[in-house]
């Protein structure tokens, strides 16, 4: 039972309506000296004591006083022994609880011993209860203090966690921004690399073109030097029946032993065939092979062929790829010095 339940039981206790078990539960609490319960109980008992005043008053029979006074007179002084009450049969309810042992009451030695033991027991019980209550209060205070401290610590930790979460959120947003920036840079870089690849390709193409142009320029320079030489001989070749519109020029410099051969309108070559130029003395000597350009132009530079200086007749025949030591195919061009 808690204190509230004890308090609720007090009015029932005062009017005698509690069950025995309930009384037995309440009375030890009253023994602990609970001030508020004692104060309330005193008032409820006084209320109970006032109830008979609500009844229509009836005087006792007139003879009763005489009977009582006679009995008192015969029984002399008030009895200080417990004998009458002790031997009294029948149940005793609240009435005996209203009495308290009094100091001017002189008990028998045996009873005194019993009473002293009883009082000592009750006192020790009350003391132990008081001590227990004090200890429990102390423990409760300690627990409450600890609880407060722990609550404060918890609040501090919660605050720190909140701060760190905020910081973390800030860092995360910064990181997101950086990742965004990085992706942008990566995209830009990819674009730049693509551009650079294109540029590199362009440069390579232009270098290739430059090489071709340089080569062509070198050839032109060579030809222009060649044509300025006074000893250069020019031989014209005409197309045979196989290539009536075709023609060719052979420029030959005996000093440098170098020759340039230009052919035009040559029929396009079939696969695995080549044209071969012959210098004819007693018998034909190969001066080299050539193929046709898309514009049906052909060019051949001839070097270190001594027979050219003595040859008076030139011809071009169609030969298998790689050429032959002697002409085997049809003659396409013929010319004479």
């Amino acid at each position: 039972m808690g204190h509230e339940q004890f308090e609720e039981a007090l009015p029932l206790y005062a009017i005698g309506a509690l069950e025995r078990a309930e009384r037995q539960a309440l009375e030890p609490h009253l023994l602990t000296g609970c001030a508020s319960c004692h104060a309330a109980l005193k008032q409820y008992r006084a209320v109970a004591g006032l109830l008979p005043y609500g009844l229509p008053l009836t005087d006792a029979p007139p003879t009763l006083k005489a009977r009582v006074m006679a009995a008192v007179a015969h029984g002399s002084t008030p009895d200080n022994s417990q004998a009458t009450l002790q031997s009294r049969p029948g149940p005793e309810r609240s009435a005996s609880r209203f009495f308290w042992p009094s100091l001017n009451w002189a008990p028998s030695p045996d009873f005194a011993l019993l009473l002293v033991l009883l009082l000592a027991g009750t006192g020790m019980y009350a003391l132990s209860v008081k001590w227990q209550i004090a200890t429990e209060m102390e423990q409760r205070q300690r627990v409450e203090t600890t609880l407060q401290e722990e609550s404060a610590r918890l609040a501090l930790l919660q605050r720190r966690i909140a701060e760190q979460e905020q910081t973390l959120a800030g860092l995360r947003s910064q990181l997101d921004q950086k990742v965004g920036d990085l992706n942008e840079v990566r995209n830009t870089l990819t674009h730049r690399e693509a551009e650079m690849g294109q540029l590199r390709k362009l440069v390579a193409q232009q270098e290739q073109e430059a090489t071709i142009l340089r080569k062509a320029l070198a050839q032109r320079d060579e030809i222009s030097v060649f044509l300025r030489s006074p000893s250069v001989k020019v031989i014209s070749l005409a197309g045979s029946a196989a290539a009536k519109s075709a023609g060719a020029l052979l420029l030959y410099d005996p000093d440098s032993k170098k020759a340039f051969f230009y052919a035009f309108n040559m029929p396009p070559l079939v696969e695995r065939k080549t044209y071969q130029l012959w210098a004819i003395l007693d018998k034909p000597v190969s001066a080299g092979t050539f193929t046709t350009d898309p514009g049906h132009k052909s060019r051949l530079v001839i070097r270190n062929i001594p027979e050219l200086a003595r040859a008076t007749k030139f011809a071009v025949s169609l030969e298998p790829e790689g050429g032959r030591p002697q002409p085997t195919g049809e003659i396409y061009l013929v010319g004479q010095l």
Partner: protein
Amino acid sequence: MEFPPRQGSWKIDPELLARVATGDQQAFAELYDWSSSLLFTLALRILGDREEAAEVLQEVYLEVWRKVVRYNPARGSPTAWLVTMTRSRALDRLRSRAVRGYGMTDSIQNRPLADLPDGNPSPLQASADLELRALVEKALVELPEAQREALELAYYQGLSHTEIAARLNEPLGTVKTRIQLGMSKLRAALRSCLD
């Protein structure tokens, strides 16, 4: 409301009991005069029988004479002590009568005609407690009937709340609440004469 010492049964001076304790028969007679009507009324209300009530009263006064030293003023007024003792003895008798096979008396209306009051109460007690009676009667009349009934069953028939619930065929909690409320209201209404 003021009750001067030794005026009216409610304000019997504890000093009177101290004199009784010394064997002062005059003081004892005075105590009887102040309290007998009230105590007889109470015993009669419980037992419904004048003879039995008178027997109980005689027992009570002899016990008072013998045990007066056991009265503790800290526990309540002399009247409260006498009322408690009378109620207890009367209820004991009521219970032993029930065991012997007599019917329990439910209310004052069941009393035989012969037991009805046989005259006006003594002017001394009647006048002294007039204001207090009026106050208590008013407080009781103002209680809801069910609460008053529960209080009367507990007080005048010595029934526990369980027995009252069984008697009235009401839930236990209801009966407990009625008693608590009734007592609480009476305590508030009678506050001026409780200390």
